[in-house]
């Protein structure tokens, strides 16, 4: 199973990403056009400024482990949506959908996070689309 599916959707880019809450260069680090999904285990939780981060260990088809740097909004912005430091814990298995890092960098800006329980969380606090 591929740990990364690249979806080029330039036309949707402007609608699909809303990094206006970021305050440093999203544009320099992440692609507006290139979205993807990763599934793996949360190995580190850093609910800190300037952006909350989760390091995620994924495995490719051959069992090779790869670490991903998943980023989202600031802790205080997340707290306003009900997303706290305990929302995602080390050891959990999650699927993250978001904007991929530029130049194939193993990083992803979280737009939607799916927990194993089926719960879906968005950093904007909006309900996920049905």
């Amino acid at each position: 199973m591929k740990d990364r599916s690249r979806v080029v959707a330039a036309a949707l880019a402007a609608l699909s990403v809303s990094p206006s809450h970021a305050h440093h260069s999203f544009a320099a680090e992440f692609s507006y056009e290139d979205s993807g999904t990763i599934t793996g285990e949360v190995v580190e939780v850093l609910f800190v400024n300037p952006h909350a981060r989760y390091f995620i260990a994924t495995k490719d088809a051959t069992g090779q482990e790869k670490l991903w740097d998943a980023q989202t909004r600031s802790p205080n912005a997340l707290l306003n949506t009900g997303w706290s430091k305990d929302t995602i814990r080390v050891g959990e298995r999650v699927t993250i959908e978001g904007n991929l890092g530029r130049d194939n960098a193993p990083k992803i800006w979280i737009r939607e996070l799916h927990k194993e329980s089926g719960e879906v969380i968005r950093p904007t606090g909006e309900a996920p689309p049905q």
Partner: protein
Amino acid sequence: MSRDTGGWVGRSRVGITLFGIGLASSFVFAAAAQQLDRLVGDWFLTLTERNAVHTGILAIERAGGAVAAFVDGGPASFALTDGNIELEFDTRDGGGQLLRYKLNGHVNGDELEGVLTPPLNAQQGSWHAERYVVPPPALPKPVDFTGVWSRASSGLARVTLDYTPAAQSVVDAYHYLDDPALRCVSPGLVRVSGWPYPLEIVQNEAQVTILYESFHEVRRIFLDGRGLPENLPRRSMGYSFGHWEGSTLVVETRMLTPGYVDLGGQPLSENSRVVERMSLSGDGQVLRSELTVYDPENYRRPITRHRVWRKTPHTTILEYDCDPYPFFRGLEIEGKLEVYWERMRRRQ
């Protein structure tokens, strides 16, 4: 014969027509020049979008035979055709994406007005502009800024500024990893004042103190007439001195740590000077600051930023819990640590 006559008549008509065009075009030219003269000067711009209102300062100048326009200190493209004003300039979103605003309009009495085309296919809005005049110094009439304030707008965030060659080379060499905020180091007054976190103001007759959640920055704005300290180190928020002009607090800040004024690596020199004009709305619920950066080493004209906060008494100021570890760990995962060390060595 008839052809000749016709030819003569024809030529005569052409001649008269050309003469007419000459008269008309010089008249049109004179009219256009007159119209342009009415536009020259500074204007206070208000852009109204569906979900946002932005303000800016539009400067229209004659430069030799040409006309130059600037919005908040950055160049803007400007055209005046048959009374139609076209103005276009760049800005960015919070993540640094380059965007463009397009304004079309006309003169209406003493004002300019028209249609606004915001970036990203957003719904059209409107704009208007009135003559911008800094009020003459008035007797102090202090008002109370005390309270907790949350950001309502940080202004248009012009990207392209009127760079000197020195500043242009800094911008060209900039890499996003050079941003000190990534490693939890304060990016300084100009950027911190626009950060999306709340701040608290406490004040008395001699001092206005601003406590920012962002980077735990604290500013003491002295109103007691003291001067710049000697032999003290520069700092990210500089040293600030204020006085009241009517109910506007005018604050001048110097001794800033050299750094950047925005995400694109637009530089700030150690000789820069920042002037803020802070004022309250009539109902006391909105605080505005028009912040101007004077840094002739880097910019041929001052940069302006418009900060707006709304009073939010129930907001709690939290800790700016920043940890540089994930930034460095992320660089390691990405294989960019070496690039980073190299950038830092170059900074020395």
